[in-house]
């Protein structure tokens, strides 16, 4: 019930209803809404305009504020998440406090979702009326301003994380780069060549990796994970857990003698980095170019940890450098950073989920990532493309869209598979002269130089069969098929079912969110799409921002991307972080709560309810006191406060009650 005496100097409201071209006008009778608004209490002027967010549109508002002495502004257009900020600035430019503004969402919530015009118009009217009733109670506010910590946290040491970290470090900002694996490099480190230019991944990645290690502004934390995040934009407090690698980074010179010295004379455990195609010892570096070049001891397989008895060849080999320390314990670091860039990447689709492709059943069915290792000069076969039984494949089938564009598994296109399949086809053709068959649904080669690469492959006589493969099996229908893998597919261009016998099958597995993406999302308090990709604030206008200010996205954690796109996005994220830091301070929505001592019961219910410990009890005055700096503006104390002493700016009881009454009136 709006009690008049709360109303400051008689309101003079200007209402601006936006056509948004036809986005709104096509469904909502804008003229009618404007007419209706013009008769609402305290409304001095109501206008419609094609694009209120355009310069002339905003000018219109400023002019009215000055000439008609408006002291309240309402814009009925799109979502406040899109333009509330814009119009607050307009309101301010017009000469009144920016918070004397209220936005009405008649596009996302009305015109775009409502079939019937009359209904849409009625709904728009109701929402506008609600805003008019609400804005009457708006108060003059000032945004809360806080200093920003100049450091940045980058999570994930793949190419995106590396690039973001270097960009920031080169701008003289201190960066903490956290990577959970023993080395940075991510997926790119596993690749041999990169499409479409075929330059060697290691050649372009390794310099960046060493640059990270060498950079004075980068603190590299490998074999580490972020375990807690709190605080807010500009002032995040982050807890990082460092797993013990039992080799002290500061003492190790990277000579790798210890690995030679290990009691196990030869590597016997499947190497994670080589996806099991190669072997490693209990003490190992994932790959020769690893950064940092510091071995890790795997407690699972190290005989000392297992039996407690070991001659400790590694320790002997290390000698007086004494870098090896079996007593190393897990370490927990507390970091303070102003911005966070998430570059946590992707995982490849588990081909085992599609049993009819025979992955795991037939040894000569590989995933594309495994083949990346096979063709890689520093890979388990030294770049020799040979089957598990040592034979050289004469016929190779590459099946596209495994775990992509598939209702059974993942519906999205993974964007990179067509191109890396072409790349692998080329490399295999080049090195083995084998017949290579690509089985595709559609060839998607929209990038720079991509289509040309496709043409090149066609010229190289690589076969392309259009059709989704039905099954891969090992039984022969005719003698020629004996001992081969048979790819059964409907060739949709000639309309017949075919059986293609091959020696090697490569499954071009799609990209999907990391297995722990959901936990990471919660940890950093951001949202994600239904598929599990981290959600950008706006698909077009804020592609690297999240809904949590100060947390930015880079690379495949936001969706499938190729290397150039990941790098570009990483640069963008770094720029956003820089903008935030160099401004030096953040202005926060002044939607914090406060407690009116005059009415406070001193019951202290709010103290326990506040998730951010922003409220304490002042025993002297017997009232609760709220620390505005800690308050994040959820308003749960307001809802609970039995005496009405707790209130929240921008969401005052008066404002909400008036709004509810408005939408119903």
């Amino acid at each position, binding site marked *: 019930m709006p009690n008049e005496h709360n109303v400051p100097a008689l309101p003079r409201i200007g209402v601006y209803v936006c056509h948004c071209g036809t986005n709104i006008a096509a469904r909502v009778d804008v003229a009618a809404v404007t007419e209706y608004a013009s008769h609402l209490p305290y409304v001095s002027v109501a206008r419609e305009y094609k694009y209120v967010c355009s310069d002339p549109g905003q000018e219109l508002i400023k002019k009215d504020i000055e000439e008609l002495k408006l002291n309240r502004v309402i814009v009925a257009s799109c979502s406040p998440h899109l333009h509330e900020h814009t119009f607050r600035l307009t309101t301010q430019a017009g000469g009144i406090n920016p918070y004397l503004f209220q936005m009405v969402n008649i596009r996302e919530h009305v015109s*775009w*979702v409502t079939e019937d015009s009359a209904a849409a118009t009625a709904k728009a009217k109701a929402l506008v009326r609600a805003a008019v009733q609400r804005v009457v109670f708006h108060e003059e506010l000032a945004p809360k301003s806080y200093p920003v910590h100049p450091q940045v946290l980058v999570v994930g040491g793949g190419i995106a994380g590396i690039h973001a970290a270097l960009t920031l470090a080169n701008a003289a900002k201190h960066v903490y780069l956290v990577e959970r694996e023993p080395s940075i490099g991510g997926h790119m480190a596993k690749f041999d060549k990169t499409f479409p230019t075929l330059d060697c991944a290691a050649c372009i990645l390794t310099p960046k990796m060493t640059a990270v290690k060498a950079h004075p502004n980068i603190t590299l934390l490998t074999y580490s994970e972020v375990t807690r995040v709190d605080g807010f934009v500009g002032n995040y407090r982050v807890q990082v857990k460092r797993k013990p690698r039992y080799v002290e980074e500061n003492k190790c010179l990277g000579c790798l003698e210890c690995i030679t010295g290990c009691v196990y004379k030869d590597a016997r455990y499947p190497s994670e980095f080589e996806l099991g195609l190669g072997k490693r010892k209990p003490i190992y570096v994932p790959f020769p170019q690893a950064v940092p070049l510091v071995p890790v001891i795997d407690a699972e397989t190290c005989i000392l940890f297992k039996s407690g008895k070991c001659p400790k060849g590694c320790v002997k080999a290390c000698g007086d450098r004494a870098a090896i320390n079996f007593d190393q314990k897990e370490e927990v670091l507390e970091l303070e950073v102003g911005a966070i860039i998430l570059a946590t990447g992707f995982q490849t689709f588990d081909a085992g989920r599609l049993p009819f492709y025979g992955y795991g059943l037939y040894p000569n069915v590989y995933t594309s990532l495994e083949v990346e290792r096979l063709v890689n000069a520093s890979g388990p076969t030294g770049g020799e493309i040979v089957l598990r039984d040592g034979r050289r494949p004469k016929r190779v089938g590459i099946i596209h869209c495994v775990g992509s564009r598939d209702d059974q598994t993942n519906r999205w296109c993974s964007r990179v598979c067509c191109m890396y399949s072409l790349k692998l086809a080329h490399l295999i053709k080049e090195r083995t002269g084998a017949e290579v068959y690509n089985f595709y649904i559609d060839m998607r080669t929209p990038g720079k130089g991509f289509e040309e690469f496709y043409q090149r492959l066609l010229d190289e006589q690589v076969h392309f069969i259009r059709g989704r493969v039905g099954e891969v099996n090992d039984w022969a229908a005719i003698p020629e098929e004996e001992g081969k893998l048979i790819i059964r597919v409907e060739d949709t261009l000639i309309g017949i079912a075919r059986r293609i016998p091959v020696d090697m099958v490569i499954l071009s597995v799609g990209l999907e969110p990391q297995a722990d993406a959901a936990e990471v999302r919660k940890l950093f308090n951001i*949202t994600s799409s239904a598929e599990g990709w981290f959600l950008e604030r706006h698909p077009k206008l804020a592609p690297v921002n999240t*809904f949590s200010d100060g947390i930015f996205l880079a690379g495949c954690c936001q969706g499938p991307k190729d290397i150039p796109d990941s790098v570009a996005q990483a640069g963008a994220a770094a720029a956003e972080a820089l903008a935030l830091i160099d401004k030096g301070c953040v202005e926060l929505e002044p939607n914090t709560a406060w407690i009116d001592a005059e009415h406070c019961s001193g019951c202290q219910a709010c103290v326990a309810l506040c998730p951010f410990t922003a409220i304490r009890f002042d025993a002297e005055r017997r009232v609760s006191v709220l620390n505005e700096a800690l308050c994040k503006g959820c308003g749960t104390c307001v*809802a609970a406060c039995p005496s009405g002493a707790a209130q929240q700016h921008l969401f005052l*009881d008066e404002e909400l009650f008036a709004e509810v009454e408005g*939408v119903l009136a």
Partner: protein
Amino acid sequence: MNEDFEPRIVGMFCNWCTYLAADLAGTSRMKYPPNVHVVRTMCSGRVDPQLILWAFRCGADGVLVGGCHFGDCHYQEGNHKAFRRILLLKQLLPQLGIEPERLRLEWISAAEADRLCAVIADFREQIRQLGPLRAPLEEEKMEHVPA
């Protein structure tokens, strides 16, 4: 059931999940009935039971509170607090002659635009079945309504 009865429903949506789901429904051009009029709060934990009672007093036939899934709350546990309050409020409503089904609490994440549409369509239908909620005030008796 009165066929042409269109329920008046107030949506109280949290800024981070359900309100964004409604935005996404818009950008995805999904269609749903126009009955729900949305009032935005930062968190479902801000939804004061008074506000819900007020909505019913002002003539709402239903109230739809939307928040983030458990574990996803932007403010850690605001949604749990909303859950507790609404659970107890639903225990009170029948005594005031209001079917508890008229108050609905849903967890709808920013990505679940399709669920939002489904919930709204379903809730509308549910309220249509219940029929209009006559605001309990017998106005003619209230010669004098206090300010």
